[in-house]
């Protein structure tokens, strides 16, 4: 035992701390009782203090509001009209802009880069680690979250703060469209009825027409088996219950591997055995993606894949990985690349718009954060990679 003070004379310590005067149990009971009274008083004080403002808030609420059930089954009271929106995901931001509601978006995430105007909004942090303070300071009427990328605890925290949060959870292409429609209706205050002039209805009707054309074009084909590379190291593909797997089906493709997990790690062996006809990558920086693919071509395992040897490789824009209206663009592009003869066009996928960020960047940043933390060397990072 180093340094420190020496034992004081007994009389200098209060009775309850003296072993010679009070027995163990007596001391514990004494202090516990004291602590209990103190804690009780503190708790009552705290609860009394925090009680009234909340009641006040709900009483003083907006002039009108609607009660809706969001896609996670949560009941949400949304003030009307919705003038200030905070988006918690790139796909949500894209959807809001596509609905013509971009001017009502007052805050979005660091990774929202489409359309270009989205970059000029107040940044509230990343989708997984937003700053509640920044969101609160924007005084949003509505915060829109999406289950695939945001955290439940973020949604709960905002709820405690009395901020309306609407969560989307599209699992299929059709749900991406209906979710878009519902969001448009909610924000424009049309209630349950879709109006003819409603921009949301118009937008999705148009998207449905385009999807119909794709469906007619690929009607009757035997779906081509594809392997979608979400992430290379480790190898991650799409699970069967994701909007992405559904998007592949719309384009006349069939995932060669489709496990039940949403973004599963798979082994290269399984890919070789499944022998996909096409390999699909997604990147907005086509040149860089092609360079990476060229690197893969010489690697053991990859080089034995028939799709790799025959150069049946498709690079799609990152839009394919966002459950937003631009997903339809990506479906069209994939269908054209897989069945050029049915579209009478040039085929091969075109380079997307500039910018390589997006959700992948989000995933990456998250993995980097994980790597810094002591605990998560072996738990968190695998999890981080599993996301999209």
């Amino acid at each position, binding site marked *: 035992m*180093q*340094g*420190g*003070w*020496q*034992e*004081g*004379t007994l009389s*200098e*310590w*209060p009775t*309850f*701390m*003296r*072993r010679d005067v009070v027995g*163990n149990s007596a*001391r*514990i009971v*004494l*202090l*516990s009782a004291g602590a*209990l009274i*103190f*804690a009780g008083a*503190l*708790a009552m004080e*705290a609860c009394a203090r*925090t009680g*009234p403002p909340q009641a006040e808030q709900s009483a003083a609420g907006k002039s009108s509001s609607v009660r809706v059930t969001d896609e996670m089954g949560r009941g949400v009271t949304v003030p009307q009209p919705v003038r200030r929106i905070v988006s918690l995901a790139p796909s949500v931001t894209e959807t809001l802009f596509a609905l013509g509601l971009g001017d009502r978006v007052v805050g979005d995430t660091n990774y929202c880069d489409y359309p270009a105007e989205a970059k000029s909004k107040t940044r*509230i*942090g990343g989708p*997984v*680690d*937003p*700053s509640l*303070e*920044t969101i*609160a*300071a924007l*005084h949003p009427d509505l915060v829109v979250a999406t289950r*695939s990328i945001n955290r*439940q605890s*973020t949604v*709960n925290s905002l709820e405690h*703060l009395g901020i309306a949060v609407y969560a989307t959870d599209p699992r299929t292409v059709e749900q991406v469209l209906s979710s878009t429609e519902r969001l448009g209706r909610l924000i424009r205050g049309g209630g349950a009825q879709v109006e003819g002039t409603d921009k949301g209805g118009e937008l999705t009707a148009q998207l449905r027409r385009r999807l119909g054309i794709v469906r007619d074009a690929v009607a009757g084909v035997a779906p081509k088996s594809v392997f979608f590379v979400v992430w290379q190291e480790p190898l991650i593909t799409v*699970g069967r219950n994701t909007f992405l797997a559904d998007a592949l089906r719309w384009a006349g493709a069939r995932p060669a591997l489709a496990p039940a997990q*949403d973004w599963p790690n798979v082994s290269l062996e399984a890919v070789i055995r499944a022998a996909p006809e096409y390999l699909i990558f997604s990147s907005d920086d086509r040149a860089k993606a092609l360079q990476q693919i060229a690197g893969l071509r010489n690697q053991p395992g990859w080089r034995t894949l028939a799709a790799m040897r025959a150069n049946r490789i498709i690079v799609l824009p990152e839009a394919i990985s966002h459950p937003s209206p631009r997903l339809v663009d990506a479906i069209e592009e994939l269908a054209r690349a897989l069945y050029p003869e049915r579209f009478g066009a040039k085929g091969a996928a075109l380079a997307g718009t500039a910018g390589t960020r997006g959700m992948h960047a989000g995933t990456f940043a*998250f993995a980097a*954060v*994980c790597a810094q*933390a*002591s*605990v*998560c060397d*072996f*738990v*968190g990072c*695998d*999890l981080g990679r*599993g996301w999209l």
Partner: protein
Amino acid sequence: MAVSTRRLTFGRMLLTCAMLTGVLVAVMVLALRLGAVPFSLSDLAQNLLWLASGHPEKLSTDFRLIMVDIRLPRILLGSIVGAALSVAGASFQALLRNPLADPYVLGVSSGAALGAILALLALPALPLMTPLAAFLGATATIAAVYFLGRREGQLDSGTLLLAGIISASFLSAVIMFLMMTLASRDVRGMAFWLMGDLSASLPPGLLCILVAGFVLAAGAIFTTASDLNLLLAGEREAMHLGVEVTRVKLVVYVSASILTGLAVSVSGAIGYVGLLVPHVMRMLFGSDYRVLIPTSALGGAIAVVLADTLARTIVAPTELPVGAMTAMAGAPVFIYLLRRRLS
């Protein structure tokens, strides 16, 4: 050190605590001032004065929303979590007579995380279920480690520590298995949780429960402080000096588990605090548990509030997990103090 030649009296202990409380208050004011949304110091002082003098209606809306509803509860949560982890760490170090003992090393944090994940899977709709299950997971782990660590009816320090480490890695493996294999998406929030995260805003009732639990458990440990001093010399020696060894160990063990369970259930596993803070306090104020317990509590609060302030501000508006900050900042401080003491 100057203090080392002086006798430890109750008055001096109080003086030390008052000094540390001053530091804590200063740190809290700093933490209140800094954040993604800036407030001027005069604005802060004015509003705090209104708040303290019972005129909450005069507060500006922004101040109420950001300070009262978000920043202040977070700072209070951070200080309680820090204090709880440090006191638990100091207690485990005395119980096991092992400087490496810490709630994290003993597997308690992993047990809590597993409990939370199971609650998320089974009853995702109930909001209070997750912290409760984390607490149960923590106490169940502690109980398991306690019984695994016994040899021939005696609590053996080495065996106990090994049991803790093994439990920790086993539970982490189970968590990883669940995360990788289950189709459910909501499990992934756990990653943040496993490295310590204070960003969630809690209902006020929960904060009250937390404070009450902390005061009770830390108080119980404090009453055994003079016994812990004797225990440090060895169990047999302590027994000869009249310490009811078994009872004291049980009280401290249960209380420290409660503290850890409470902390982990609301903030996840913030590492290094339980290990570092008691050591730093020992270097500064000596290893007498009567002063070590209160100073560890205050020091832990200071450390976590500081670390969380850094986590909130250095890359604002993005927030880093506080566990990353405690690990990055804590290790160099520890090495500095260690070197200084050796020279």
